């Protein structure tokens, strides 16, 4: 049986949010709901500052706390490792939202809000039908696509092919070969977010290769007058 995982290569990722948008389109999520976010983080102080972009999504944990927390048994882990939140069984208790250490499950208690005028057929007939309102919702690794032999929407849409999806149990899958290749060529080994949470996430990352250094005259240098400014 397959064991699906998504590897995100942070060297390739440019923080462009194409994944975020592709996911919204594929899953028909309402206003303010994003299954595939990109965290835009600023680290350090000027001039020793770095920009860090971390795409996040459901990690499809092997030991998923959301699954254990649900009083309605609405969350199941498929044999291929994909964790599914059953929209019909969910009663919107929010237990899973609290249980997920990654904050990747969304529950909107108010009515969903949308983007377009309510009479637009696009949203009315095609988007709103995709998910149930007032239920907990999350990324499914686009299981509906995976079942048809397609990659998840965020993977297909990533303009830098930073997202690599596949079966870890298959040594010839794109993800397995990519991991081996990168270990050999760039010395990078995959890591997972919050390993201390003990959830055994399926999602993993490869690190940034760029040095991200900066060079200026530093703190002591006076801020020079703008060139061309004639001092009065």
């Amino acid at each position, binding site marked *: 049986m397959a064991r699906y995982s998504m590897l995100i290569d942070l*060297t*390739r*990722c*440019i*923080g*462009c*949010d*194409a994944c975020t948008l*592709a996911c*919204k*389109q594929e*899953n*028909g999520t309402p*206003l303010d709901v994003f299954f595939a976010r990109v965290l835009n983080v*600023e680290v350090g102080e*000027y*001039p020793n*500052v*770095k*920009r860090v*972009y971390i795409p996040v999504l459901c990690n499809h944990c092997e030991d998923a706390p959301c699954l254990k927390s649900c009083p309605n048994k609405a969350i199941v882990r498929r044999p291929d490792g994909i964790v599914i*939140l059953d*929209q*019909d069984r969910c009663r919107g208790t929010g237990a899973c939202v609290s249980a997920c250490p990654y904050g990747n499950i969304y529950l909107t208690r108010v009515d969903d809000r949308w*983007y*377009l005028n309510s009479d*637009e*057929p*696009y*949203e009315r007939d*095609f988007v709103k*039908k*995709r*998910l149930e309102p007032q239920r907990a919702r999350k990324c*499914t690794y686009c*299981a*509906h696509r995976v079942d048809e032999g*397609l990659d998840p929407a965020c993977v*297909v*849409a990533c*303009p*830098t*092919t930073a997202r690599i999806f596949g079966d870890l149990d298959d040594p010839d899958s794109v993800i397995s070969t990519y991991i081996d290749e990168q270990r050999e060529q760039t010395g990078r080994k995959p890591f997972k977010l919050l390993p201390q949470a003990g959830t055994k996430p399926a999602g993993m990352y490869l690190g*940034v*290769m*760029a040095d*991200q*250094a*900066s*060079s200026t*005259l530093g703190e002591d*240098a006076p*801020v*020079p007058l*703008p*060139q*061309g*400014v*004639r001092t*009065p």
Partner: protein
Amino acid sequence: MATRHAVPGRFSKPKPDENVRVVRTTDSPNCTGACGWLATVVNDVIVDLKPAADYPCEAYNPRGCLRGMSMTHLIYGPDRIKQPRIRIGARGEGKWRDASWDEALDFIPDKMIAIRDNYGMESMLLFNQVVGTGYVQKGAQVRMASLLGLSFATAYDFNGDISMGFTQTVGIDCVECETKSWGHCKTVILWSSNVFQTRIPDAKFLTKHAKQQNNCQIVCIDPRCSQTAKGADLWLPIHPGTDGLLALSLCHVIINEQLVDWKFLEKYTDLATLIREDNGQRLRASDVGLGEEAEFVVWDEVRDGLFVLPMDSLKLPDNVRFAFNGTREVEIEGKRVRVTPVYDLLEDEVMQPRYSPEEAASLTDIPAETIRKLARDFALQRPSSIVIGMGVNHRLHGDLTIRSILLFATLVGAHGKPGESVSIYSGQHHFRLDVSSWWFPNGKRPNSVPMHYFVIGGPTETINAKIKYPKHGIKGLMVSHANPLVTEFSGPLRKAIDDTELFVAIDFSMSPTCEYADVVLPAPTFWEKVDLVGTSCHPYLQMQQEVVPPQYGSRTEFWIAKELVRRVDPTKLKDFDFTEKDAIQLMLSTGGKEVEGITLQQLECGPVRLKVHDPECGLDEQFHEDKLFPPRAYPFPEGAQREFLKTGRMEFYKEEESYQRLGETIPIYRPAFEHLPEDDQRMPLSIVTPHSKWRVHSTHSNNPLLLNLNRKPVVEINPKDAARRGIRDGDQVEIFNNNGSYQLWALVTEAIKPGVLCVDHAWWDRYLANGKYHAVHTHQKIKPTHETYFLPAVYAPGQHWKDTRVDVRKVN
């Protein structure tokens, strides 16, 4: 490809949709990326857009970005214009009546005929964005202008995309290696270029190819730690406006450390040509009785005598060694005249102490050792490329800066090979085929008038004689798919529009420009019309398909143009007896060698590779075929650019009187803000206005999906500058100077240099806390050297928006 299955976890699955079509098309926004898409259409509604990822060469796949993908929310968005509108209140008052197409198409021609009869048809000006992105539809408007005798303002120069530093040096307004070429680099300098935001589909050639495969060194020069700095090894937060000084300091190091590639300079540059001391002109072969006036001479050390440069090819005999230094005397008409090679003059300038890394360090805020190492790495860790961004170009002295950057790369010969180029991806002027037969019926071109002169109220004293500014001024303006009232000179432009008798806007969204129009005509988005699309980013020609018919009451530009011709001058209608596909076929059959053999049928099946090198490195004809510079600028005939690049080589010396008068015959460093009025100069902060990740210029400003991620206009400000003004993160603040002010919200961030503010370009006014966006921008100004010659959008005035200085205060 999309699936129409419901998201798993729902047991009551909806019935699969019937009547599903999947269409392969391309979009053509003004990012000029031209990405291929698969659109899924159900019951004539576009329900899904996914990258087509079908480029035959796998490296290009996939292309696309968040903006392209969220087009559904503009196609079906709340601001979509659904039928023609005619103003009933004052301009900009927002009072309209809906009109039928018939009514609108009577109203406009009546006014156009009145303008023609009272002032001449050339007093009606067409300004459409952006002609290079859609050869058929935008071309139809130009064809209409040609047939009816309208004036035509190319958007490219008014947008500030024109890079006069390139025109002056290589004879064409930009050089763009295709982005696949980046993948070969070992050293890349991104000089104020933020390609992770502006070239999203191409960025993979830096991250996945150059970095991951070559461990390329990527250097970002930018006052902001931009999104692209995320992928850089070294970020150099330069002091705004000092880029030219840094470039010449890099040249200083190259010369000092003897890293110059002399063989390259001999063949490809004017650096050995001789400059006469008596008049500052270049020595001609005719001066010394060795040939024609259009031939130039150098001193050959092998012959110990003058050598006439060939003017049919760049190829040189093997047994020459040009002199780059030393003043000599020649006899011209019986007089002894001292002549000196261009290189010697440049060396005199560049080796001055003010360009030494030590002195440059204190003004640029980049340490001397960093400057030295950057110069060495660029010269030695090859292949090396530079990508220049618009922040460098949008300055009055941007031309000097770009000439200096080109000099730096040229001294080490970093051009013309995979991974070696100096590129500026400044809008799509780089036409991929000759569109003349479609745009200019029977060879007739519209009267070209740069928009600048309209905005400043008429011609300057130094206007080029080739520009025929209408005798009675501009009395009518037709703007299509353009939003000039949210660009930097929107204030003066609004005033100029007030003097017109007709202002027509054609668009799909009710933009701030449409809000100010007399008549608004609804046009389709690029998902609703046929076009032919090329780009400089990749070598594929693509067809844009009518994925769904023009939505609501919209009509294509092609149809509107034809109807206007029918009503204004029916005798010209015979020259508009075309369909869109006829126009494509016409252009393919007359488009030149790049499209030879390409057929409409091939294009209907998917992307077709142009007949160009793989990868295109920029200036391919010069470096592969030894053809003289400049590369031809379509749609102008071969030779049209020769007058401003007489030597046929990269020119670092400009001999014309206008250059001599400004003291800009060779690239020098001029302080960026010296041309501003003193009151403006005293404002303490610089402001940069980069392209946003969330928009293509102002398109998508109103996209509800993208506004969900990018909720408010903010000004990025360093904590030091913020603290000094009592500004906290999230505060409402006012940016102001002597020209005006506007209000938005503060984003206090460590990722920007102290002394610099940053506001993303092209927010629509309605999203601001108060005021008009760009109200602070400095006045339109034209550098006289930009008027010495005129070739629309190739040699024409540029822009200097980044020279604005401002301050900011908290709004209580």
